C-alpha cells in the first residue's frame, strides 16, 4: 500500500512538472511569437494556407487565415477584428470611408476567368469576343449557330441548339471580374446589368460556386458558363479563347494573365483598385483580376505591423514561387516594384515599418 501511495504521489508530481518544464522551454526559446489574423476571400485560400505553412517554418510568424468570403473579410477589416482582410473585389469608396484611416489594397496574385462550354462534338478553343459574350449573357444571342458566332469560328460546325447560359448564383469575385469585363466591352451590359460580386442576371441558370457552374455546364448539353482558369484546368473542362484589345484570340494561361498585368500596368491606379480586364498589349488574356490583402496604412501595433508588412514583402517576392503550382498567376515584375513602394509607406506611430 505504502509503495502504491508513493508511486501515485510521484506520478502526480511528474504530471504537474511536465507542463511547467515544457512551458519554460518554449518561453525561453523564442521571444513572444507573433500571430497575424486575417479573414476574407475563399479564392486565394489554398495559396494563403501554403504561405502560412512555409512562413511559419521559415520565420516563426503564424498567419491564421479564415476563408469566410470577401464580403465577410471586408466587414471584419472595417470592424478591425482582424489584422488584415482579403478580398477578390475592391472595397467601395463608402466602405473605405467607414473603415476610417488609410486603407491599402495590396495585390497578391491574379486569376483569370474563362468561358467554359459543353457542346457535343465541339472541342476546346472556340473563339469569342467580348461583345458576343455580353450579348449571349444578355440573352440577345440565343443559338450556337448565330451568324456572329459562326463568323468567329469558320472552321467549326456549331449546332442550331439553344445556348444554355450558366452563371454563379452566389456572390463571388469571379462574377465581379466577369461582369466588369462585360461592362467594359458592352455599353448595353453596363447600363442594363452593371458590375458587382452578384448581379441581376438577364438570363441563364445559377450554379453555386465554381463547382456548381462546372457541374451544370458538364451536365447540360449546349451550355456556356464562366469559371476560374484554375478550376477549368484542374477539371479538364473545354474553354474558349477570347479576343483581346490587340485583336488576337488568346487562350487563358498563367503567362498570358501575368502578361496582362504588365499590359495594364499604366492603367493600374495608385490604390490598385482595378480589374485586369481588356488591357493593352500583345499576347495578353483580357479577363482577369487581382486578389488583394487589405491593410491599414497606419498600423496600431508596431510589432504586429512590422510582422505584417514583412510578411507581405515576402509574399509578393519569395512567396510568388508558390503561386504557379497552385494555378494562380504570379505578379509581374513591374507591378512588384510598385508594390514595394506602397509597402514602404506603411507606418506605425508615424514611423515607417520598412527601411
Amino acid at each position: 500500500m505504502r509503495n502504491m501511495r508513493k508511486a501515485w504521489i510521484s506520478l502526480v508530481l511528474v504530471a504537474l512538472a511536465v507542463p511547467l518544464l515544457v512551458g519554460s522551454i518554449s518561453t525561453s526559446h523564442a521571444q513572444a511569437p507573433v500571430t497575424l489574423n486575417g479573414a476574407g476571400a475563399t479564392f486565394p485560400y489554398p495559396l494563403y494556407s501554403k504561405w502560412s505553412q512555409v512562413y511559419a517554418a521559415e520565420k516563426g510568424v503564424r498567419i491564421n487565415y479564415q476563408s469566410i468570403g470577401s464580403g465577410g473579410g471586408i466587414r471584419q477589416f472595417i470592424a478591425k477584428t482582424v489584422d488584415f482582410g482579403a478580398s477578390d473585389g475592391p472595397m467601395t469608396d463608402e466602405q473605405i470611408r467607414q473603415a476610417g484611416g488609410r486603407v491599402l489594397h495590396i495585390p497578391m496574385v491574379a486569376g483569370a476567368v474563362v468561358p467554359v462550354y459543353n457542346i457535343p462534338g465541339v472541342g476546346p478553343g472556340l473563339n469569342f469576343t467580348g461583345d458576343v459574350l455580353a450579348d449571349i449573357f444578355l440573352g440577345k444571342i440565343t443559338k450556337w449557330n448565330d451568324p456572329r458566332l459562326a463568323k468567329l469560328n469558320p472552321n467549326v460546325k456549331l449546332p442550331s441548339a439553344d445556348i444554355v447560359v450558366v452563371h454563379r448564383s452566389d456572390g463571388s469575385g469571379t462574377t465581379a471580374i466577369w461582369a466588369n469585363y462585360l461592362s467594359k466591352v458592352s455599353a448595353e451590359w453596363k447600363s442594363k446589368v452593371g458590375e458587382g460580386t452578384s448581379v441581376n442576371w438577364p438570363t441563364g441558370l445559377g450554379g453555386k460556386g465554381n463547382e456548381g457552374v462546372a457541374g451544370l455546364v458538364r451536365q447540360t448539353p449546349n451550355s456556356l458558363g464562366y469559371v476560374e482558369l484554375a478550376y477549368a484546368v484542374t477539371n479538364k473542362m473545354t474553354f474558349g479563347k477570347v479576343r483581346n484589345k490587340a485583336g488576337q484570340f488568346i487562350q487563358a494561361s498563367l503567362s498570358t494573365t501575368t502578361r496582362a498585368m504588365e499590359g495594364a500596368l499604366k492603367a493600374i491606379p495608385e490604390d490598385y483598385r482595378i480589374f485586369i480586364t481588356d488591357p493593352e498589349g500583345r499576347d495578353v488574356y483580357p479577363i482577369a483580376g487581382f486578389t488583394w490583402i487589405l491593410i491599414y496604412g497606419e498600423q496600431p501595433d508596431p510589432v504586429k505591423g512590422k510582422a505584417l508588412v514583412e510578411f507581405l514583402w515576402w509574399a509578393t517576392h519569395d512567396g510568388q514561387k508558390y503561386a504557379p503550382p497552385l494555378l494562380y498567376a504570379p505578379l509581374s515584375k513591374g507591378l512588384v516594384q510598385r508594390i514595394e513602394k506602397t509597402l514602404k509607406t506603411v507606418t506605425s506611430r508615424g514611423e515607417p515599418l520598412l527601411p
Partner: protein
Amino acid sequence: MGAILVALTSAAWPAIRQFGLAFFVTSTWDPVALKFGALPFIYGTLVSSALALALAVPLGLGVAIFLSEMVPDWLRAPIRFLVELLAAIPSVVYGLWGIFVLVPWVRTALGPFLKAHLGFLPLFTGPPIGIGMLTAGLILAIMIIPFIVAVGTEVMRAVPNTQREAAIALGATRWETTRTAILPYARSGIIGAIFLALARALGETMAVTMVIGNVPQIKASLLAPAHTIPAVIANEFTEATTDLYLAALLYAGLVLFVVTLVVNILARLLVTRVARGVEAIRE
C-alpha cells in the same frame, strides 16, 4: 425564439425601412442597383415545398400503412431501418445525387415525357433542362418521406389493438379496418408528421440550391428554374458587401422565419382540432 426574432429584425432593419411591405410583392433582385424584392423566393420556397408534400404524403403514408398494418413482423425492422437511413443522409449528398442522377433523368426522361403527354398544361412548358422547380420538388420529396414514414408508422402502431379487433369483428376487410379504425384514430399524429416534413422542406438549403437553378423568377412551368429563400441566403451571404444588401438577405431570413412560424401555428391548430375529433371517436 423571441431573441432570434429581435436579432433578425434589428439586423434587417435598414432593408425593412427601405422596402417595407413592398419586399413581399416585388420581384426585382438587383444587388448592383440595390433594389430588392423577395416575391420569387417566397414563391419558390412555397411551391417547391408544396410539390414535395404532394409527392411525399401519399407515398409516405402508403409505406407507413404498409409497415404498420400489412408487413410480416420479420420484414418490418429492416424496411424501417432502410427508410430511416434515408433521413440520416446529409443534404449535400442528396444534392450531389440530384445533380448527377436526378437532373439527367429529368432532362432526358421525365421532362420530355411530361411535355409530350401533359404539355398542354402551362405547368409543363419550356425546354426540359433538368434543373428547376420539379427536380427540387422531387429531391425534397425523397428527403421528407422518411419523416412521414417514421412518425406515421409510430402513431399507427400506437393505435390500440382493440380498435383493429373491433373493426375486424364487424366484418371489415384489412383496408376497411385501416381506413375506418386506424387512420381516424391516428389522424392528429399523421398531421403532425406531415407538418414536421413540411418544416424540413421549407428550410432545406443545400440540396435545393444544387438542383433548382437559382434564378429569381416566377414561371408557371415546373420545368423552369426557380429560387428559394434559404438558397438565396446561403448563396449570397458570404459576398454581400454592402449594408443594404446584407440587410435585404436578413429580411428574407425574417420572412422565412415568419412563414415557418405560421406553418407551425397552423399545424398546432389543426392537430388540436383533429384531436378533439379523435376524442369524440374514442368516446
